[in-house]
């Protein structure tokens, strides 16, 4: 039996920074993941956008904390994750969309977001080549950015290793053992682990892990496809998000990463539920005409690779973060709704504070509680 102070299930967007935060507090940490190395689940499927621009109080707060952490990685931790503070741009060509975006601004500003409405001329300067015909302007949040999800996972993995965390890969959790209402053991295909604290950070598989303890968390993954192009000279800084729906898709978004490639993703409609992450023939013909309509200049870019990843959704599109009420010592941090990359770094410190120091930020832990009323819905997703 391997004994630890704390076991983190899942070496992904949440588990990795959390492992670092916990190990940095001198806890003996074990991270278990069924895949072969760090960030191989949905983390690496993330296209790399990182923003605080949400319309929900808790998510804005977590997002800002994430951005702060990520911005400090190079200077303070010597980790280069290709972070670029290019901002998020939401252009509008439709009066209804424009009104919707403008309508969010008071709330967003109230929660301290640096965001504002920009007119077409300024927007064109930020995104040279974007369609100008019918452009009404858009919102721009210059403090957001993008990074390499691959490098971020690598960085957190290295940082956690350095602080002494133990990683067990190809180690699939099969059961959670309890004793008198307390978590006790984590059983895996590679033997048992023991710890008084266990964090469920299993992402798209968070519901299954919850069920092992008898808790049914409403986490249901759907899937999105993404792609990346060849690299070209820098021409675009922000993440461009077109939230106007089409016949068979909702929003799509793209940006140029530090390596020069354009990375893109679309939300299909209807949503594709389930854990299938095989690529489909529908993706490219769905997303490319939309991108070329908005940004004709992209037509010369060659598409290099496509993939599909899961969005572990919750009914109100907000993460589930907090202690299990039935099983003491079990903590859930799942249902990131496809935003694990941008929420994980910030959440990690908040979760570590709650687990180790017992300090729970009420704004976060109330809003994201596993036992909240899930009927609400965030306006901007």
């Amino acid at each position, binding site marked *: 039996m391997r004994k630890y102070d704390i076991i983190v299930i899942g070496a992904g967007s949440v588990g990795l920074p959390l492992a670092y935060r916990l190990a940095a507090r001198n806890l003996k940490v074990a991270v278990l993941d069924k895949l072969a190395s760090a960030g191989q689940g949905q983390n690496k499927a993330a296209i790399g956008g990182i923003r605080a621009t949400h319309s929900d109080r808790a998510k804005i707060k977590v997002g800002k904390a994430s951005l702060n952490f990520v911005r400090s990685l190079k200077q303070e931790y010597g980790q280069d994750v290709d972070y670029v503070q290019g901002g998020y741009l939401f252009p509008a060509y439709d009066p209804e969309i424009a009104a919707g975006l403008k309508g969010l601004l008071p709330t967003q500003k109230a929660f301290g977001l640096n965001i504002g409405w920009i007119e077409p001329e300024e927007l064109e300067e930020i995104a040279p080549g974007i369609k100008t015909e019918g452009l009404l302007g858009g919102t721009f949040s210059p403090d957001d950015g993008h990074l390499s999800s691959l490098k971020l996972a690598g960085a957190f993995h290295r940082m956690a290793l350095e602080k002494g965390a133990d990683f067990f890969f190809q180690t699939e959790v099969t059961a959670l053992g309890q004793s008198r209402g307390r978590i006790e053991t984590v059983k895996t295909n590679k033997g048992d682990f023991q710890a008084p604290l266990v964090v469920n950070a299993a992402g798209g598989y968070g519901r299954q892990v919850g069920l092992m303890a008898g808790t049914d968390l409403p986490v249901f993954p759907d899937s999105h496809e993404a792609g990346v192009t060849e690299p070209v000279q820098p021409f675009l800084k922000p993440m461009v998000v077109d939230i106007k729906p089409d016949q068979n898709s909702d929003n799509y978004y793209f940006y140029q990463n530090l390596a020069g490639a354009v990375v893109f993703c679309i939300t299909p409609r209807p949503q594709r539920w389930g854990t299938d992450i095989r690529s489909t023939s529908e993706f490219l013909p769905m997303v490319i005409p939309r991108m*070329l309509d908005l940004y004709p200049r992209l*037509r010369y870019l060659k598409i290099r690779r496509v993939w599909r990843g899961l969005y572990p959704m919750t009914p109100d599109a907000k993460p589930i973060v907090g202690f299990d009420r039935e099983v003491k010592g079990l903590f859930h941090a799942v249902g990131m709704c496809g935003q694990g990359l941008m929420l994980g770094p910030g959440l990690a410190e908040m979760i570590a504070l709650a687990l180790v120091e017992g300090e729970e930020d009420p704004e976060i832990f109330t809003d994201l509680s596993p036992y909240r009323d899930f009927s609400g819905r965030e306006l901007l997703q």
Partner: protein
Amino acid sequence: MRIKEHPILDIEDKKTISFSFNGRVLQGQEGEMVSAALFANGIQSFSIHKVEDAPQGIFCANGQCSQCTVIIDGQPRKSCVTPLQEGMEIKTLVHFPELPPGNEYHPSHPPKELECDVLVVGGGPSGITAALELSEQDFSVILVDDKERLGGKLVLQTHKFFGSVADCYAGTRGTEIGRILEEKVLNENNITVLTNSIVAGIYSDQKAGVYENQESYTLVSFRALIVASGARERSLLFAGNDLPGVYGAGAFQTLVNRDHVKSSRRVLIVGCGNVGLIAAYHALQAGIEVAGLVDAASEITGYKVHADKIKRLGVPLYLNHTIISAEGEGKVERATIAQVDKDWNPLLTTAKTFAVDTVLVAVGLNPADEFYETALESDFPVLKTGDANEIAEASSAMIGGKIIGRKMALLLGKEVFLPPEWQEKADILKSLPGETIERKHTLPEGDGHRPILHCYQEIPCNPCATVCPFNSIQLSGKTGTILDLPEFKGKCIGCGLCLLICPGLAITLVRRSQKEGLAEVTLPHEFRHQYKPGDRLELRDRDGLALGTGILKSARFNKKYRTSLLTVEVPEKIAPDVAGILVQKQEAAAPLAKPNYSYLPENAIVCRCERVSVGELLDFIKENQVTDLNQLKQTRAAMGACGGKTCTELLPRILQQAGVPKTEITAASLRPLAVEIPMQAIANQGGQKK
């Protein structure tokens, strides 16, 4: 430089047109690949890599990697698959291209949709025979191939093929076999052929995305899939392995035998398998010198007759040797080899440096079977054939494709019989060389003719036994298969047909001369020559040992076989041993007086697209406890334009070198696209082609 004349290939005259390269006006041939036009003008450096400003030369010449990318009329294009047009403005690509301007709107169109019973990926020997078989069984087939011409690599093979005459056109040249197969498939109503088209992805919804004609995107729905996408050349790690002038034997064959470019003055070939041996032969036929062939193994893995042929022509083979460096200013100027010890480590005291401008890597092939692996994750029927299934000769691929075609018919519910002898034949055709059996040859008595069969190794081959008008050459019958050695018994009128058809050029014809103590030896010769009766020719035995000289009596050219029969008068006692004549001057193969190299194995490039070196990877592996190849993507290895086609097989070796046990290594995940496609093609906007 161009190849103006070739013993086997017809060199057509094409229209000369002008284009510019970095502002210089140059001449090229209309419709040839831009890479060929650049090579013909002596340009071998296509782009400058962002890492260390390293010049990039051609590598695959096959549209698979992106190393030959240049800027053509403002757009980055792979020069090896872009036909040259009048007035093209071509520039060196420096680091990354700029995204061309052009904000005007172009309408997009949904992909064209096609349907078939079976999609066959790859129109080489196995793909074609699989498609033909399925067509015969009344299935509709779509056959997709990335080239203009079908036939796969057959179209690059100027040599005659081994194998069985009845089953796979043995004794016929690869170029001709390719043409025959192409014609058959184009005449089938059940088969739709998409040439110049690349399958970019096999998707889970049972559709394939096809990048058609370099301009549009088509979705093909299928009931079943056959992967016949051939093989990929293995790469080799040595310092300087990324210099312009280091490339695969396949690329060389394309440049020389398809594009008719004299791409080198002198080459060094790494690998003594059939691919390396044949590349050496092709080089000599194209007027390119061969400094030698190198192989770390202690035995030749290719057919002995191929190796013997090369040795006779004056090319040394260095067994138990490896290449340790290629060096030069911006391109290969010299290459150094060294003997290896039992653990395959180079013994630097044995180093030899050759002044060569090209290093051809021919260290074997790997199946290009990614689509098969992807398809296994879905539940439609999928089979693979040819080199995509197992590396073997084209002869076995032809019958293998037929078998797979019929197996697929069975999988799709057709009640049809699969004759077991098909598989037996395929197994024989893919047999590795068997036993080498020595035999003594003598002159016939009187003034009769006799063929001398310099064929000592059991390989699947039977043309000589099918061609003799008197059936005087027959296989020994030892096993009753075409692996048996041929034997001569009976009558010979000296017609020379056996000499002409033998793919190994391993048969000579001897008879006693009227002059005392002399004999006449007739030799097949596949080179252009200006020999005249009375010339003295340097004689060689089958292993390339010098046997003195002989006087040419006559030279007859056979048009059908494009082969000369040289009759030479030689001393009687050596006549049975004379197997060929020296073609290459000995200076061509001489090493420099002193070796001249640096030994820096960690500088070898593993990922060519992103220029990631052995040393860089070893450091990363140690620092990050790497066991999963996906982790190496953080170094950008395998993240480049080619999608890891070359480095994927090298990366596990680096991990093992770093001490990770083979069993603990996790393979990198596999994803579409197999080839980069411009967005405008996906959106069917047109306009990619000028």
